[in-house]
C-alpha cells in the first residue's frame, strides 16, 4: 500500500533443484553443481550430467576435497503457523493495510507513507546418494511500515524496524510485532523529528534499542565469525575478518557481560531450522561466553578445512545457489536490567532507535551506523529528541565497552530478510534476538 493506493497483489512460485556431485578422478577430488528449474526426472538427469562435467573439470584444482558424510540422516518437519496466511482473505488483509495507511497520513507534511506484508511458504528437501532424506517446511512473514515527513527542505523518516522485522510463522506474529497499531506512533515520530535539533557531536554513553542492536550484532559479531571469511573465501566480495583462527578459546571479544549464541531453536525467529543445507543437525552453541570468543560460524566443510569447531550453518538462499557459511539465529543472551534501570544508570548519554544506515570495513572492524531517532539522556532521565543520530567505532573495542544489557523481558526477536554474501550473490534470512545494550564512551554525531 503506497501513499494510500493499493499496489497490485503479487504472488510468486519458485521451484527448482540443485544437484551436487563429488568424485575422485585419478586420485584427485572434484566437485560441481548444476541448478535447474526443471525437476522432472530428465531435467534432474541433465543437471546431474552437467554437475559431473564440473566435477571433472575441477578435479585436482579444488581448494579442499569435499568432506565425506559419516551417516545418513532422516528427518521430516513441516511447521504450520498458528494463524495461517489464508485464514484471512486478501480483501480482509487489504482492508487492514488501508486502515493502517490512513493512520500514517495524518498530516500534510507526511509526503510518503507505505505499508506492506510479505509472506512465504517454503519447503526444502535434502537427499543424498548416501541415504540422506531431510524435508523441512516453514512460513516466513515480513511486515513493513514507513512514513516520511517533509518541510522546508528537510525530510525525516520513521519505520517499523526498517527491514529488521522478520518472523517465522503466520499472521499471529504481526500482533507480537505490534504491526497493526504502530501507524500513529511512526507518523508522529517522523513529524517530531522534523522539528528536532541535530544529534550533538560528543563522546558519551550510548544505549541502543534492539532494532539497532540487531544490526550491530549482525555486522560486527556475526559476519566476523563466519569461518569462510576467516578462510578467505569471501575476500573478493563480502570481505575478510579481523578474527583469526588462533583467537578461538582465548580472545576477549567483549566485556564479561557479552554472551552470544547460535540458536536455531527459538520459535518465531527467522532461522529456526533442524538441519542445515549440508544435511547437518543444527544445535544451540555459545559463540562467545562471558566475553571470550569460543566458536566460529562455519559448517562441516569449513570446519574440516580450518580444523576448528563450528556450527551447522551451511545455508543456501534458494535452489539456485550453493550452500555457504551463513549466519542463522545469532543472539545476545539477556542481562539483568529492566529498561528503566538501563536508562537510570546513564548520567549523560543518548538512546538510539532503528537503524537507517550501516557501513563497516571489509575486515569488519571500523564501523559507522546511523539511526532514525535519538533521545538525549541526562541524569537517568530522557530529554530532547534529536535527528540524524550516528555513531562510529571499532568492533574490537566497542563490545568491550558494553556495560549493561536488558533482561529477558526487554529481548526482541528481530532479524533481516536480506543478508548479502557469496559469489554468486545470495540474500538470506537471518534472525537476531537481543535486549537493548548500554555502551560507554562512544563517538556520536549528527547530520550536515
Amino acid at each position, binding site marked *: 500500500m503506497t501513499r494510500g493506493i*493499493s499496489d497490485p497483489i503479487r504472488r510468486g512460485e519458485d521451484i527448482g533443484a540443485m544437484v551436487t556431485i563429488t568424485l575422485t578422478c585419478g586420485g584427485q577430488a572434484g566437485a560441481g553443481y548444476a541448478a535447474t528449474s*526443471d525437476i522432472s526426472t530428465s531435467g534432474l538427469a541433465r543437471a546431474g550430467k552437467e554437475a559431473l562435467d564440473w566435477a571433472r573439470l575441477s578435479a585436482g584444482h579444488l581448494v579442499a576435497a569435499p568432506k565425506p558424510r559419516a551417516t545418513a540422516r532422516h528427518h521430516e518437519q513441516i511447521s504450520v503457523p498458528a494463524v495461517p496466511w489464508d485464514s484471512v482473505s486478501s480483501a480482509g488483509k487489504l482492508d487492514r493495510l488501508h486502515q493502517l495507511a490512513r493512520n500514517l497520513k495524518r498530516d500534510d507534511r507526511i509526503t510518503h507513507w507505505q505499508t506492506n506484508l510479505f509472506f512465504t511458504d517454503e519447503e526444502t528437501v535434502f537427499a543424498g546418494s548416501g541415504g540422506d532424506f531431510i524435508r523441512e517446511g516453514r512460513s516466513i512473514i515480513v511486515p513493513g511500515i514507513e512514513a516520511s515527513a517533509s518541510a522546508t527542505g528537510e525530510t525525516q523518516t520513521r519505520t517499523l524496524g526498517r527491514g529488521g522485522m522478520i518472523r517465522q510463522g503466520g499472521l499471529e506474529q504481526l500482533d507480537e510485532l505490534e504491526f497493526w497499531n504502530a501507524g500513529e506512533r511512526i507518523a508522529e515520530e517522523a513529524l517530531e523529528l522534523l522539528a528536532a535539533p541535530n544529534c550533538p557531536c560528543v563522546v558519551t554513553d550510548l544505549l541502543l534499542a534492539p532494532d539497532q542492536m540487531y544490526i550491530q550484532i549482525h555486522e560486527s559479531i556475526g559476519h566476523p565469525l563466519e569461518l569462510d571469511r576467516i578462510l578467505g573465501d569471501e575476500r573478493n566480495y563480502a*570481505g575478510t575478518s579481523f578474527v583469526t583462527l588462533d583467537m578461538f578459546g582465548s580472545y576477549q571479544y567483549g566485556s564479561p557481560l557479552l554472551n552470544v549464541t547460535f540458536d536455531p531453536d527459538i520459535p518465531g525467529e527467522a532461522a529456526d531450522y533442524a538441519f542445515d543445507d549440508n544435511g547437518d543437525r543444527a544445535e544451540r552453541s555459545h559463540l562467545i561466553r562471558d566475553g571470550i570468543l569460543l566458536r566460529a560460524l562455519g559448517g562441516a566443510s569449513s570446519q574440516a578445512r580450518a580444523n576448528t569447531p563450528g556450527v551447522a550453518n551451511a545455508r543456501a538462499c534458494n535452489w539456485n545457489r550453493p550452500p555457504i557459511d551463513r549466519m542463522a539465529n545469532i543472539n545476545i543472551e539477556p542481562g539483568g536490567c529492566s529498561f528503566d534501570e538501563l536508562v537510570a544508570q546513564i548520567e549523560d548519554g543518548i538512546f538510539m532507535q532503528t537503524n537507517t544506515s550501516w*557501513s563497516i570495513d*571489509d575486515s569488519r572492524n571500523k564501523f559507522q551506523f546511523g539511526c532514525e531517532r535519538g533521545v538525549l539522556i541526562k541524569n537517568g532521565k530522557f530529554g530532547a529528541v534529536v535527528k540524524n543520530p550516528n555513531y562510529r567505532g571499532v568492533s574490537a573495542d566497542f563490545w568491550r565497552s558494553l556495560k549493561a544489557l536488558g533482561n529477558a523481558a526487554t529481548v526482541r526477536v528481530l532479524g533481516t530478510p536480506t543478508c548479502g554474501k557469496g559469489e*554468486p550473490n545470495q540474500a538470506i534470512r537471518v534472525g537476531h534476538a537481543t535486549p537493548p545494550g548500554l555502551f560507554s564512551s562512544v563517538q556520536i554525531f549528527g547530520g550536515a
Partner: protein
Amino acid sequence: MREHFFRLSEHAGQMLSNGEGFLARYSGERSRFVRFNRAAIRQSGTVEQHYLTVELFRGRKHVSERLTITGGPDDEKRLEASVLYLREMLASALGDPHFLVNQQVQSTEHNAVDLLPASQVAIPAILNAVGGTDFVGFYAAGPIHHGFSNSFGQRNWSTVHSFSVDGCFYLHADKAVKLSYSGTHWDEKQFAAKLAAAKTQMEFLDRPAKTIPPGGYRVFMASAAVEEILGILGWGGFSLAAHRTATTPLLRLARGEAALSPLVTLNENIGAGLAPNFQDEGFLKPATVSLISHGRYKECLTSPRSAEEFQAAQNGANADESPLALEMAPGDLPESEILRALGTGLLIGNLWYLNFSDRNACRLTGMTRFATFWVENGEIAAPVNVMRFDDSIYRMLGGNLVALTAARDWRLSTDSYESRSSASMHIPGALIEDLRLTL
C-alpha cells in the same frame, strides 16, 4: 526459450475473457559460475533458471504471478493454472488509479552473438594466469535473456552474452589489488594487460603500510571508486517518485538550492549498455535521459506508475526508477598525468560499503578497500591502511571536484542476487580536493 515464451504468450491471449488483458515478462539465464580462493576452485557449477511473470488486468484492476518454467510442455499447464488463480484474485483486487500500460505495439528484438569461451577454455586460462599467487575471485559467464509480451500483440526480446572475472590478488592480511575484466568477448591480450597492471600494483603494495590520521585529503578516485558513489545515488537520487515525495538524497540539487561541479554530467544511456531497451509495462526506453547536465538537475527517471501518480511523462523507467546504463561525461585529465595532478595525497582504487550518513545533505560514508596508496610529489610511496570517509556529494562532486579523466571505463555490474545483473556504467576517474576521512 524465445519461441517458447512467445508461444506461451499466444496461449495466454487465447485464455482471456471479455475485458481482460495481460502483460507477460520473461527473464532467464544459463550461467557458468566458478569461485576461486588461493588460486584454486572453491565452488563451480551451472545455474539455469527461467521465470515467467504473468500480469492479468481488467480495466484498472491488475494482479500478477511469477512462475518458474522449464521450456517443456508442462509450462502451458502452469500458465493455465496461473491465469485461473489471477482471475480469481482480480475479483477482490482494488482499482489502481496509477496503472498504465503501453497500448501502442512497439516490438523489438536484440539477439547478440555468443562470443564467450567454453568453460573448458576459460577456467584453465584463469588458473594458469593466477597460479602461484593468492588469487580470490569469481568468474561468471553466459547468456542473459529478457522478454516482454502483451495482449495488444507487442513482442520484445533481448539476449546478451557477457562474462566477468572479478577478483583480487592478496599480498597479506587485507592488502590486495583488484582484477576486473568483463565484456562480451574474451580477449587474451586484454586479460594479460589487466593481469600485468595488477601485478605492477602488487609491487607497491609490498612496501610498509602507512596509517594516516583523520583529516582532509586530496585524492584520486579510480573509476571503480566513482562507480560506488554513483551507485548509491541510484538509491532514489534519480527517481521521480522520490523527488515528488521529497525523499530523494538529491533534493537540494533538484530544487536548485545546491549545485554540483559543472564537470558533472550524467545520462542514462540505455543504448550504451547491456540492459534491455523495454520495461515491465511494455514501454520502450529512450536512447538517452539527461539526469544531470553540467552540475544542474535535468530529468528524473519516470516509471509509468509515477507518471500516472504525479501527472508526468514516463520515460521508460522500471518501477524502482534506478539507472541501468549510467554514463558520466569524461573530463580532460590524461591517464598519464593522474599522479602528477594528484601531487601529494591518496590514490583510491576502490570504495566499499557506502551508505548515507545524512540523506538531506547527501552525505555519504564508506571505506577504502583493496589498493589505496599514499602518493608524494607524483610518486606512489606506500599502501595505506583502510580509512573511512564521510563527506557530502555537494563537496566531493561539487566545489572540491578538480578534474575527471579523459578516459572512461565500461564497468559491467557483477551483481548476481537472484539473477545476473545487466546493468553497467561508463565512468571516468575523479581528482577531488579535501576529502574528509574520519576513522
